[in-house]
């Protein structure tokens, strides 16, 4: 049940409560703003009286997927950092990310082989899904700690050891039941230990499943396996491991608060609907990444060990999505035109009042009709699959093509990787570790037709481009080499390209310890090469030069972009009986990710502007203490990032097309403090607390580059224009990101809890408080040619420029303020970023360990999260990439803003909520 509603109908009046917003915008003292309400652009051409932007599809779908993958498990620390060892698990329900860092800043190794995806930068945890018992044996370190396996990112790293000899000897069977993404789980794991003939074997097989997960319309279907064998041959050991987790799962989609209110649940899922009375989800992920690794360990001497691993992975990842042809009505049930608040501006007090709505009864009648439709039957607020089939069949019967279809977007990947690591003790006080990492990754990106939904015909052209340029225009062709190709189920269409990334790294770590003091220095030199290979010749990437010659920017290879990066790290630590102090620093020059490197990778080979090595630097101080029965850790850190490139991809409603927005020269800062304490009151009773305060900000207004699919190169150039209103000059397009927070993770979190054990029973209670979770900000809404630009209208008596815009308007919409005398930008303000309400979550777990004869045991554990059933805790969300205004010159926009829409996208971000009360019952039998 939703306790607070945004939109309540009472006596004919609708009240709208705005979401809480942080005072992120501090207006500069050297400008004067009129208190008048917002001022619209002068000379705006009157727009069409109907909203012609019906051809709308989706939000940040790519990022939506990424959000799900970003949650960071505990980094851990070899030095016994209490905070890092607890934080990942304790706050996982809120998708907490340590230091607000993306997964890409942690480096994950398997048997010494770096396994972060070179395209995305991230380690895919689902690679090891269900293999909990097989992957417990790992070494985790913070960013600058000395370790045996390699260089880690600014977020630290870990090395999971999958050698058979490291598997715990014996067998274990686990049965689990829960009400989360999946509902039941079974795991069988065995380890032989080293047999007399030198062989060791280990393995695990698991199944996780739910015909319907805790979120309605989702399902989960996953098998996991891991088999490993090792043979000891004197000083050598050869180990082979193969694993994979073929998984099919249906996704939850975020929605707006209004949709949640209408559905009376914060767990409303717009991704599914009834098909012939059965639930069908439009967004289904299939993921299988079979991996094999061969490891050779050579114990050269007591002082030296060499470990070499060759790995191969072939990843098959796809996700489906519902799509539609240009003229069809958007099939999303929560498409904004289906929502009551699209009828009139519910946030405008001049409209949303009894007097006005009585005088305009048709508005309220329509509002209530739409509201009643949403609330009268569940099927009304879900995808109407039967209708989509009916429409397609009607179209088919008259010779038409599929108006709706389900496409499958593939992101396959082949990886060859090699590592070799030498661990060498120079003396009792000195250790040297060094090695190489080589990686050759090929990403294969394309989409196929998953389901024509009752239709029989589909031509591979861009339906939106066909509307703007004509079906016979080359711009409409997905592949000029195969124009107007007919597409059937499983055929590739739309886009098809490869990305190749090669990485070579040389690294070394040196540690010197004497007495209580330890110093370590580390460094690496890393070469990265990347290129794109287009397998289709997209009609939108044909550029005509001044001589009339047409250049293809789509088919074939882009040419290699090469980067030579590296890092230096150092740590000083002092340890005595009860304390350990450490101070560390690092500086890294890091190659950009290939996923951010191309202007529009689905279409063309062009690299983004300002693509360069990123600069990352950090300092970190840590104190670990033991004072009697009190143990704890305190840390402070600062991380600076400069010259980064970030790309988002989304369906741009304004231009009815898939759009890439790339920011370059991005600067960010992360800093904060972390604390964890544990006090043992009795030998079997302890209390603990943990807290962190982080700041994670964008600190500049980066350059921006837009590329919209379905537009010719000429028109794409037009949407990148930002004109100086004083001089008329063309300016470099920017995003007003300065001051925006990294979103979708709590920047403040506090935990207090207690643990008690008696007679084999274990009890733990944790109360958590989360705050400063920010909504992911829309870069598109903050583009300097999307925001209002103001030139000062006068100079006041103090000599300050006066602008015809209110502070309130700037907070809500952002603004670019120009100085009429100099023709320069005075200030750029991004629209204020939404901060979610803070909240508590109470978790508890109880367990029992039963020792049986013959080294057998049973353990039972019940964990309950969110005992108080707090269903109002937002874990994340994102602003819709659409602003509140129509545009002049629809389709190829000249950038000028038109009139306001009734529906306010700026007030309707999409949110995810933490799970309601949920339980996880685990029963282990070990023998």
């Amino acid at each position, binding site marked *: 049940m939703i306790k607070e509603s945004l939109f309540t109908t009472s006596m004919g009046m609708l009240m709208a409560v705005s979401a809480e917003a942080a005072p992120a915008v501090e207006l500069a003292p050297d400008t004067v703003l009129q208190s008048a309400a917002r001022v619209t652009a002068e000379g705006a051409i009157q727009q069409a009286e109907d909203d012609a932007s019906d051809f709308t599809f989706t939000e940040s779908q790519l990022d939506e997927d990424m959000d799900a993958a970003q949650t960071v498990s505990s980094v851990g620390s070899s030095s016994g950092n209490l905070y890092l060892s607890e934080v990942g698990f304790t706050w996982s329900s809120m998708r907490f990310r340590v230091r607000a860092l993306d997964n890409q800043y942690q480096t994950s190794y398997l048997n010494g082989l770096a396994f972060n995806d070179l395209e995305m930068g991230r380690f895919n945890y689902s690679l090891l899904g269900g293999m909990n018992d097989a992957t417990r044996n790992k070494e985790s370190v913070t960013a600058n700690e000395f370790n045996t396996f390699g260089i880690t990112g600014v977020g630290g790293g870990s090395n999971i050891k999958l050698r058979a000899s490291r598997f715990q000897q014996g067998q274990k069977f686990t049965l689990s039941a829960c009400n989360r993404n999946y509902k039941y789980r079974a795991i069988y794991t065995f380890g032989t230990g080293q047999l007399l003939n030198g062989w060791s074997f280990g393995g695990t097989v698991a199944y996780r499943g739910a015909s319907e997960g805790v979120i309605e319309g989702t399902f989960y279907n996953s*098998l996991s396996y891991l088999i490993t064998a090792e043979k000891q041959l004197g000083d050598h050991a050869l180990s082979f491991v193969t694993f994979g987790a073929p998984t*099919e799962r249906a996704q939850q989609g975020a929605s707006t608060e209004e949709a949640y209110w209408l559905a009376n649940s914060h767990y409303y899922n717009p991704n599914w609907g009834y098909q012939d009375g059965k639930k069908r989800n439009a967004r289904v992920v299939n993921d299988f990444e079979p991996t094999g690794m061969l490891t050779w360990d050579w114990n050269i001497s007591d002082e030296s060990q060499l470990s070499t691993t060759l790995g191969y992975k072939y990843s098959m990842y796809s996700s489906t999505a519902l799509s539609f042809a240009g*003229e069809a009505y958007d099939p999303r049930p929560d498409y904004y035109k289906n929502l009551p608040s699209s009828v009139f501006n519910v946030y405008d007090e001049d409209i949303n009042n009894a007097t006005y709505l009585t005088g305009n009864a048709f508005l309220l009648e329509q509002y209530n009709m739409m509201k009643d439709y949403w609330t009268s039957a569940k099927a009304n607020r879900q995808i109407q699959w039967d209708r989509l089939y*009916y429409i397609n069949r*009607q179209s088919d019967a008259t010779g038409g093509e599929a108006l709706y279809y389900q496409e499958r977007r593939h992101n396959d990947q082949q990886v060859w990787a090699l590592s070799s690591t030498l661990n060498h003790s120079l003396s009792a006080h000195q250790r040297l570790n060094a090695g190489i990492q080589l990686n050759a990754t090929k990403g294969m990106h394309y989409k196929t037709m998953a389901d024509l939904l009752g239709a029989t015909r589909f031509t591979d052209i861009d339906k939106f481009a*066909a509307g703007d340029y004509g079906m016979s225009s080359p711009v409409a062709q997905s592949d000029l080499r195969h124009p107007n190709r007919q597409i059937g189920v499983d055929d590739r269409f739309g886009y098809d390209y490869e990305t190749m990334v090669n990485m070579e790294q040389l690294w070394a770590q040196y540690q010197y310890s004497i007495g209580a003091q330890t110093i370590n220095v580390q460094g690496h030199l890393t070469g990265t090469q990347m290129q794109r290979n287009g397998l289709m010749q997209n009609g939108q990437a044909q550029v005509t030069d001044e001589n009339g010659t047409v250049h293809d920017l789509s088919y074939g290879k882009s040419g290699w972009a090469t980067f030579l990066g590296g890092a230096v790290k150092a740590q000083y630590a002092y340890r005595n009986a009860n304390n350990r102090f450490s101070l560390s620093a690092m500086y890294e020059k890091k190659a950009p990710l290939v996923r951010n490197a191309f202007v529009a990778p689905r279409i063309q080979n062009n690299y983004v502007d300002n693509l360069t090595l990123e600069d990352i630097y950090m300092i970190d101080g840590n104190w670990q203490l033991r004072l009697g029965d009190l143990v704890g850790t305190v840390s402070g850190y600062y991380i600076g990032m400069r010259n980064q490139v970030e790309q988002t991809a989304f369906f741009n409603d304004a231009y009815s097309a898939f759009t890439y927005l790339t920011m370059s020269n991005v600067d960010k800062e992360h800093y904060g403090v972390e604390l964890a304490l544990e006090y043992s009151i009795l030998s079997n009773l302890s209390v603990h607390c943990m807290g962190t305060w982080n700041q994670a900000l964008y600190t500049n207004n980066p350059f921006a580059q837009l590329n919209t699919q379905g537009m010719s190169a000429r028109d794409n150039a037009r949407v990148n224009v930002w004109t100086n209103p004083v001089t008329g000059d063309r300016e470099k397009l920017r995003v007003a990101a300065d001051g925006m927070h990294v979103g979708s993770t709590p920047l403040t979190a506090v935990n207090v809890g207690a643990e008690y054990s008696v007679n084999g029973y274990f009890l733990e209670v944790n109360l958590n408080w989360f705050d400063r979770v920010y909504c992911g900000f829309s870069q598109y809404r903050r583009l300097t040619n999307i925001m209002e630009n103001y030139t000062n209208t006068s100079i006041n008596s103090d000599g300050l420029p006066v602008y015809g815009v209110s502070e309130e308007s700037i907070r809500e919409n952002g603004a670019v303020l120009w100085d009429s005398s100099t023709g320069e930008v005075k200030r750029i303000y991004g629209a204020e970023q939404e901060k979610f309400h803070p909240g508590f979550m109470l978790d508890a777990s109880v367990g029992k360990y039963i020792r049986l004869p013959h080294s057998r045991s049973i353990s039972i554990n019940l964990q309950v999260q969110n005992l108080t059933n707090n269903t109002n805790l937002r874990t994340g969300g994102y602003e819709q990439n659409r602003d509140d205004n129509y545009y002049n010159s*629809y389709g190829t926009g000249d950038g000028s803003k038109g009139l306001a829409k009734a529906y306010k996208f700026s007030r309707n971000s999409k949110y995810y909520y933490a799970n309601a009360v949920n339980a996880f019952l685990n029963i282990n039998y070990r023998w």
Partner: protein
Amino acid sequence: MKKLHLNIKSSYLSLMAVALSSSMLMTSCYDDLDDPDTSDYAANLQVSDSLPAANITLRDLKLKYCSNNGKVERPATYTYSRNTSNWETRIDEDLIVEGVICANDGRFGCLYQMLLLRCIDPTTGDDQGIDVEVKNTCLYPLYPVGQRIRINLNGLYVGAYSRVPRIGYPYYTSSGNHNLGPIPLQMFMDHVQLIGEPDTTVAECKCIDRTGAEGDAWIRASANKVVTNYPTIATVRGVFLEADGVATLANDSLEDAGYGVNRTLKLLSNNSTMIVRTNTGNEVSHIVMPKDTVELSGLFSYDSYDDKWQLNLRDTTDFKIIKQ
């Protein structure tokens, strides 16, 4: 000893194999549904109970609510009127109209959010049409051409938009104007009944022939500019004054506030002209205007602002070049 080791290995591997195979059995595909039977789906697009027979003709409806007794003027009474060209009256009784859909948005979306309802009286031959606005960008598969429908106007609005007779629902434009606009689709479904199967061979689906000298004369005659003569579907002939063999019917650089472009068609047998209006962003808009004579079919209506007849093409097939 060696044999024992092998036994241990085989025992583990057997367990693995059993677990793996049983898990694979459980891992059947969840995302596998049969295609639905939609043969009766049309029942979801209309009222659940049958509507009574029509109790008002389109002619009487237009005379009463859409004109000043036939003149292209605002009627004496109405619920709301923004100006002399736009007005509406809310219907609060069970007025039932009936007709055949003779034009809709079509596969290219040329006619935005509209159905053209037409009814030819089998007895008198009286031929009337009215614009029914429905809020959806893809009406043609739901309410195809040739489909006879009945609409209960109770709760809907009848009036005119730019003096063109219309059944719709009021709304505010982005510029703040109160106009008679589209009926929300769900509301329309609660007011409409489908009668029989679509049949494009019926008389209502045939364009009125306004070609030739007789047609040109009809178009030229001022007396014909009465609401009982429009909107309908018709065929005309002429030459484009803007034709240069390169220019298209519509493009973004020429579009007006209504996302459309007006072109001038000069009739063949007299000097009269009429408007050919085309929305941008659809296949028809990309048709190059030839210097030759063209025969055009489509939505035939009256543009009171320019005091000219206006034609909107529905599809590329509505455009024919007549070689001289």
